[in-house]
């Protein structure tokens, strides 16, 4: 079955609200209570970020068995010389372009799960991608995505068929890009895809309530079924666009990201998480890994982009004080052949390493490297089934019975250490920060988070646009770590104000807007 076919097999979305829910407009203003609730219940705030490497990443040139002669024999032109490999232990190391990941590995925040694949590997990009995204057996493709099924189970539709998203602030999942991932395909629309939060909001508002007609009866024809799908898509956009914009307005990246697609996608993700969305899953992707020819430069460029993006993202999460809540998972539809081809490239292969990163990750190597001599006709035999990793994430990160999602019990790995993460105190900031206030604009009160790398005397004050101090929010000694301060602006006029945090040698300022 082809992707095209089973997208069409998607169930009709009967009874989805056809009139746009106007309450969601009011919700777009947000409120401190939402942020507070969110911050107060961190175990609900766990986020999974998927990084998809499209095209089949060459695992052997990503995590390199640099002590193995078989590797060098199989790749006379493509092998990375041992002297250039970033050795992580005596046998294995990273491609030199992944140098930015070395500190994470040393800190125990980067896990490499070796030899991830599945039985009877399929070497078609599309089939293998579908197998991964739907968590299927190689010969029996399921028609929904693994995360789509998870969301169906945690938020089953109510009696009217509407998904019960509770008090959510934002959609269950967000994909950065134009289209929604098959991984999110379920009974109801789960994911919002976007490339820019503000542009998305403006577009959706322009679209407005394009359907103001009667609720449609049960679709009778393919045309009516597709119409119902279009209407539910428009409704989902309308429901979430405000949340997403508010979250984006609400936060700022603490570091500058490289001007490159994957990094820029992750910058948006960091902003949205820090901005308070309750979204659990984010999906970003980078393509071009199908390196059949002239692989060396192309693969280097891709790995450089990947390493820089992850390192910057993690730094941002650390600074923003949300690193405990986020785990990243890097995957590709397959690895590549052990032996290089005649075009200075590699053809489609099988198993490859998966990379996990985050504070909750148990760093280091998980499992042995697949053998380069005991192979599957020149391809790596897998050590781990990718569904074991899905099960691990579902059980250990989302505390959910993975068998319900995966249809079978896949043994989990000891990969995520949730006892020390999340419930612990937020990570110690490595540098000073003052985050954008939430909500903004606000009335009458708003909150800001700030962080100190060391215990210090500080002063947080509010100034009007004439530079006159009108309130002091905190003055005194503050411990190292992350803190929140709230300004109740009752009694002040609408307008723009500056909130400034000062300490010897430190001055951080945020502009806030009071609208009465």
């Amino acid at each position, binding site marked *: 079955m082809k992707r*095209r076919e089973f*997208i069409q097999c998607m169930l009709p979305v009967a009874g989805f609200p056809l009139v746009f829910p106007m309450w969601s407009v009011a919700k777009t203003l947000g409120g401190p209570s939402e942020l507070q609730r969110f911050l107060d219940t961190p175990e609900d705030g766990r986020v999974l970020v998927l990084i998809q490497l499209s095209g089949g990443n060459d695992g052997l040139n990503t995590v390199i068995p640099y002590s193995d002669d078989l590797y060098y024999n199989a790749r006379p032109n493509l092998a990375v010389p041992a002297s250039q490999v970033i050795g992580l232990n005596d046998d294995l190391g990273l491609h030199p372009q992944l140098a930015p990941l070395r500190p994470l590995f040393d800190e125990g925040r980067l896990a490499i799960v070796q030899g991830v694949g599945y039985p009877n590997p399929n070497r078609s990009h599309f089939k293998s991608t579908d197998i991964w995204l739907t968590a299927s057996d190689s010969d029996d493709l399921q028609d929904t995505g693994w995360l789509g099924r998870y969301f169906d189970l945690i938020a089953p539709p109510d009696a009217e068929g509407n998904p019960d998203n509770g008090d959510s602030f934002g959609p269950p999942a967000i994909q950065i890009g*134009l289209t*929604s991932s098959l991984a999110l395909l379920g009974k109801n629309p789960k994911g919002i895809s976007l490339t820019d939060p503000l542009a998305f909001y403006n577009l959706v508002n322009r679209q407005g309530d394009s359907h103001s*007609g009667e609720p449609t009866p049960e679709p009778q024809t393919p045309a009516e079924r597709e119409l119902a*799908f279009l209407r539910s898509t428009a409704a989902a956009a309308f429901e979430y*666009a405000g949340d997403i914009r508010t979250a984006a307005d609400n936060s700022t990246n603490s570091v500058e990201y490289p001007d490159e697609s994957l990094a820029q996608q992750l910058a948006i993700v960091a902003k949205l998480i820090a901005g308070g969305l309750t979204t659990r899953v984010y999906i970003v992707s980078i393509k071009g890994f199908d390196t059949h020819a002239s692989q060396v430069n192309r693969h280097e460029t891709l790995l450089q982009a990947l390493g820089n993006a992850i390192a910057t993202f993690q730094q941002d999460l650390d600074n923003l004080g949300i690193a405990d809540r986020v785990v990243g998972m890097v995957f590709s539809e397959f690895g590549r052949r052990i032996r290089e081809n005649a075009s200075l490239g590699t053809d489609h292969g099988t198993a490859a390493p998966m990379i996990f990163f985050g504070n909750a990750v148990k760093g280091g190597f998980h499992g042995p490297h697949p053998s380069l001599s005991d192979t599957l006709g020149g391809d790596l035999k897998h050590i781990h089934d990718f569904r074991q990793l899905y099960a691990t994430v579902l059980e250990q990160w989302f505390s959910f019975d993975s068998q319900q999602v995966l249809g079978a019990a896949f043994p989990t790995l000891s990969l995520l250490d949730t006892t020390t993460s999340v419930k612990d105190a937020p990570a110690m900031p490595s540098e000073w920060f003052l985050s954008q206030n939430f909500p903004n604009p606000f009335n009458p009160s708003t909150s800001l988070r700030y962080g100190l790398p060391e215990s210090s005397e500080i002063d947080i004050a509010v100034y009007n646009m004439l530079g006159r101090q009108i309130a002091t929010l905190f003055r005194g000694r503050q411990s190292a770590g992350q803190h929140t301060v709230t300004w109740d602006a009752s009694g002040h006029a609408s307008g723009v104000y500056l909130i400034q945090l000062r300490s010897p040698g430190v001055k951080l300022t945020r502009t806030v807007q009071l609208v009465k």
Partner: protein
Amino acid sequence: MKNPSTENIAYLRGRRKDSGAKPHTGIDTWGPAQARHLLRRTGFSATVQEVETVAALPRDQVVELLLTEEFPDKPFAWIDEPYNPRGWTREQRQQWQATNRERLRELRDWWFRRLLRGPYNLQEKMLVFWHGHFVIEQSNVKVAQYMYNYQAMLRRNALGNFGTFVKEMYKEPAMLIYLNGRENTAGNPNENFARELLELFTMGIGNYTEADIKEAARALTGWRIRREDNSSYLDLRRYDADQKTFLGKSGYFTGDHIIDIILEQDATALFICRKIYSWLVNPEPDEARVSELATLFRSSGYEIKPVLRSILNSDYFYETNNVGAIIKPPIQLVLDTARLFDATDQDFNYLSRASAVLGQELFSPPNVAGWPGQRGWISPLLLATRSAFGELAIKGGRIDRKNYRGTGLSIDTMQFARSFGTDSARELIDLWEQHLLTIGIDDVTRENLLNLLLEGAEEGDWSLNYPGVEDRVKNSLAQFLRLPEFQLM
């Protein structure tokens, strides 16, 4: 101009109010509604005038007109310029890159011009289908000459013989670059092309083994690009002349032999007919009909025209179950909008860019499997952008803000409104519904559209000369184009 028939409105309403009624069979019907459906599916919709003309002809005659081929002269002098970068300086290379970029733009704009040119345009539209089937990507192939030659190869074969088509396709320089055919040599096979040939271009997955891929790759070795004239040739020094075993047959097979064996497989005719049916009739193919078409395809020696003729002259093509079942691809949305409003002299660069913003850029499919189509065209973001495109087409404006160039889509809304020959707002709404939408709308939506058109005026007072009527016309038409119904074909 006389009013278009109103039977279609009655039909649309009838179906809406009684959606459980027996499906419309279309057997005894050939009228404006059917003509509109045919022209939308085989081209990019039609003006009010064109629908009338076509509906007045016998259906089979219209189908023959649609199957007429036309081969334009080479539109640009640079097409025959050899591409030979050997020994270029850095400056020369940079200059070539700028020139090449401009040529690709020219070529794409020219294709859009051809796509928009008239109601009988199936050949040109089939190019888009085949482009999404025998995929190449500009980002990989780069050279504008190769892109034009590839496109000309599609045009030569779009309505021709599928066997000839595949044999020409794999020798095209663009394809030799895109799927590494030119790096596929004796002793060092590169199986990229062979895999996609079987999986995506001819048989479909599940009908061959990994060993068949390897053997096919061997037979396809040795093809290289000839720099002098942008053509290709078989270099025997790189060709694997040994015996191969492919799909159970053994012999000293060449690439053409491999194609011949592929054409002997039932799977091939079924795979291609299923894809044509999905694209032209209904994304959920009726397997019995696909099977009939496949039999016809094989018995005609893989001629494409008989398959298309059979579909377009069938009654099922016009059935309610198939009308409106397809979500318009971006190119369709963009060109439909231009043609429905008779806006033919266009800023083709905008049309091409708008289609790209909506997810379909000619010469740049997302990957070797082509555009996924149907619900793959839609996400909350893309749907909102489509809706913005429709609104801006009526009110003036573009959905691509970057690198602003040209005028955007320019539609004369008042001329369009007057072409229906009535001053009744209610009648106009009914006629616009019939002309613009594939499936009917409900009464509440229709009243909303009418209210936008009247905007406070009494129905009896309203006319196309009413003060401030142009804004009212635009508001109502913009709302028509924002309806989810407008996304269906």
